[in-house]
């Protein structure tokens, strides 16, 4: 049951190599520091999970951020009440999010298309305002849920762990701390497993049924196929992936804030998936990395850095170049991202993965191997 087709196995190995060598190939891009690489891995998990729902069934959920939030809060509460070990925290986070997804999915999946999207959005906004103000005793509202030194941590207290620590306790994995690069490799390992799970789902009869729902749900129903449980299962799995991502966010940085559940975050994961390529294995991951890169690196470039970078140009030209470019970096990073999004959706509706395939097809044609494949196949 753990086997993969040859193509998938190659994909998995390539993927694992790319993820684990991040500290090397991200260095020239100015992004190889643990904080951001952790985010790369975590948001890739989130996008992979989202793609199981959106990519396979075509149901566009606009409320996935709610699951990230639920996962984060559960994790921090597990840190506060039980133990600083991350394993129970992750298990609880995934279970709680699964239950949440079951409830939200049960109601939302009674409708399709735009109504489904609106319902999920409504549920997510409800969760957000609950977390932001109503449930403040549980979520600590705007400030976010933080660890404190005098949290009970019943399990830790029972085993006498973390007893003699001066500052705030840190999340641990079987006794060793998970900050910095260790945290990144933990997230990377989980990302590779998540990628593998998504490969298995894509290749399974279950995945085939979900694709059937996407192409024509009515026909599926007429052939005597009950689509409801399949949809709900896909929704719950996808929610659990998001919960896992939320748990990892809180593990690498023990804080849970309500902003994680805002609709803009739900929108972000949709952007990630579309940017990379809906329904492809690699697409959502690439999209997630691209958006996180823009958000963290482009937004930090200021005119000073631009001036240094273009100092080789003559003075007048340098000023012109810096003035024009400064509109697209720093506070203008949304503008660059928006432009890129528009270009990709207009010219590459299948996302960056489609662009890659077109490029490959062109190269193949130039080599002079007319093997008759003219239509572009999305990678699956």
């Amino acid at each position, binding site marked *: 049951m753990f086997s993969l087709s040859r193509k998938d196995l190659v994909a998995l190995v390539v993927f694992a190599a790319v993820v684990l060598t991040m500290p090397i190939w991200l260095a020239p891009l100015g992004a190889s520091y643990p904080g951001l690489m952790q985010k790369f891995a975590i948001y890739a998990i989130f996008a992979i999970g989202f793609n199981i729902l959106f990519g396979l069934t075509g149901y566009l959920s606009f409320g996935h951020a709610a699951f990230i939030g639920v996962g984060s809060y559960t994790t921090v509460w597990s840190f506060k009440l039980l133990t600083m070990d991350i394993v129970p925290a992750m298990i609880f986070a995934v279970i709680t999010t699964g239950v949440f997804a079951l409830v939200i999915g049960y109601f939302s999946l009674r409708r399709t298309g735009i109504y489904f999207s609106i319902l999920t959005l409504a549920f997510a906004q409800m969760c957000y305002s609950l977390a932001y103000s109503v449930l403040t005793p549980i979520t600590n509202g705007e400030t976010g849920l933080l660890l404190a030194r005098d949290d009970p941590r019943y399990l830790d207290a029972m085993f006498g762990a973390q007893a003699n620590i001066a500052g705030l306790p840190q999340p641990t994995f079987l006794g060793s701390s998970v900050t*910095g690069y260790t945290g990144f490799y933990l997230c990377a390992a989980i990302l590779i497993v998540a990628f593998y799970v998504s490969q298995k789902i894509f290749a399974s009869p279950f995945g085939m049924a979900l694709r059937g729902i996407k192409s024509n749900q009515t026909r599926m129903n007429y052939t005597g196929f009950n689509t409801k449980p399949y949809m709900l299962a896909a929704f719950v799995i996808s929610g659990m992936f998001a919960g896992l991502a939320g748990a990892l966010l809180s593990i690498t940085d023990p804080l849970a804030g309500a902003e994680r559940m805002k609709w803009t975050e739900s929108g972000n994961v949709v952007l990630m998936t579309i940017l990379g390529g809906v329904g492809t294995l690699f697409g959502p991951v690439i999209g997630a990395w691209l958006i996180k890169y823009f958000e963290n690196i482009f937004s930090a470039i200021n005119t000073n850095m631009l001036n240094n970078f273009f100092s080789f140009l003559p003075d007048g030209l340098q000023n012109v170049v810096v003035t024009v470019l400064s509109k697209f970096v720093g506070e203008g990073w949304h503008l660059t991202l928006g432009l890129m999004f528009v270009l990709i959706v207009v010219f590459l509706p299948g996302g960056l993965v489609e662009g890659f395939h077109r490029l490959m097809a062109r190269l193949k044609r130039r080599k002079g191997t007319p093997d008759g494949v003219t239509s572009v196949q999305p990678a699956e």
Partner: protein
Amino acid sequence: MAIFKPNRRSLLKGAGAGIAALGTPYIFTKGAWAQDFCNDPTNGKIVLGFNVPQTGSYAEEGLEQLKGYELAVKHINGEGDGGLLKTLKPVALKGNGVLGRKVEYVTGDTQTNTDAARDGARRMIERDKAIMVTGSVTSGEAIAQQSLCQEMGVIYMSGLTHSNDTTGKDKRRYGFRHFFNAYQSGVAIAPFLAKEYGTDRRAYHLTADYTWGWTQEESIKNATEALGWETVATVRTPLGLGDYSQYLTPVLNSGADVLILNHYGHDMVNSLPQAVQFGLRERQANGKNFEIVVPMFSELMAVGAGEAVKGIIGTSNWQWSLDDEGTKAFTKSYGEAYGEPPSQSAHTGYVQTILYADAVERAGTFYPPEVIKALEGFEFDGMGNGHTVYRDSDHQCFKEVLVVRGNENPSSRFDVLNVIGKTTREDVTYEASIFGGELGPYEPNKC
């Protein structure tokens, strides 16, 4: 589909081993980070991290703050006219950088979002090797960054944050606040409310429904009830609401004669003009003129609210039209650099940076525990707020709090607030223990 041959399995095993082999070197390089303390700049550049909202609902105040930071770096490095380095007393900075070396800075966008704020702060600390991080426009951002910096062992100088929690229940050893807080607003504004509106009033609170709003509501409620006012109702409004009419209608028949708006930023810019359009200020209730109070004010909000702000009483951390030496010097150099008077957001950012640099100069080292000790209990003057002390027990600055009133006849676009009084430092000082919380240890974590 389920193809399972031994050679595949061995391939899988090999792949696993390869991955592990690739991964190991980086796990060991982690130790290479270890140094005496996080981002020791002795052999590298001195980098300060300015993390403010440049997009999102508080972007305007964030960008103002950033201008203040950039000006502070110029003055520390001896460029420009020196600004407040000339008026700060006692001063250790010589205008040749910090400990004789020039200071550099990196910037980040918090997007008015605590997660993005922490991402930005981590980038500054992990990639750019920042020795100090500063900046915030909401208390959520400030508290999130402050706790992160405590974990990383890097000092955090908060920007604009008014919630009691920042130096109360969520205070940290590595976090410092120059800005005033909601409790001080309440104490400062009460005597002026009594003088202007009497001691027999019935107040109706509209409060932004999040931590800051609640702490302010509580503080103002306590202060006004001590005057003898009665609180008719406290109603929470969701953050970011555009139309307040459903909340303003009940005020008319509630029997209240004062409306207190615990709103900030866009919320206040929307709610105050709507309250005025409702005709609240022309109303008579209980035989008195109906009044509106906005306990926490900023110039940017006053400009945003336009005509409606005229005559409204509130409090402020600092105001460019004050006439002490520090304020004059700062307004002059900021005006020369950016062509407009500075806001309190720019001021607090500027002052925090100077105070940090000065503390390093006095401590003679960047080692955080020494710098923290240099800041704790530091008494200074000439930064535009009169005689000020950085209290050691909660890292809150104690200084005069300004009571301001919307200008009836503004002479320019920036002349929107009049200072009608100052509440002395002694009056706004409180016991640090009333908010609880714990500062934590001095010893830095190695990041």
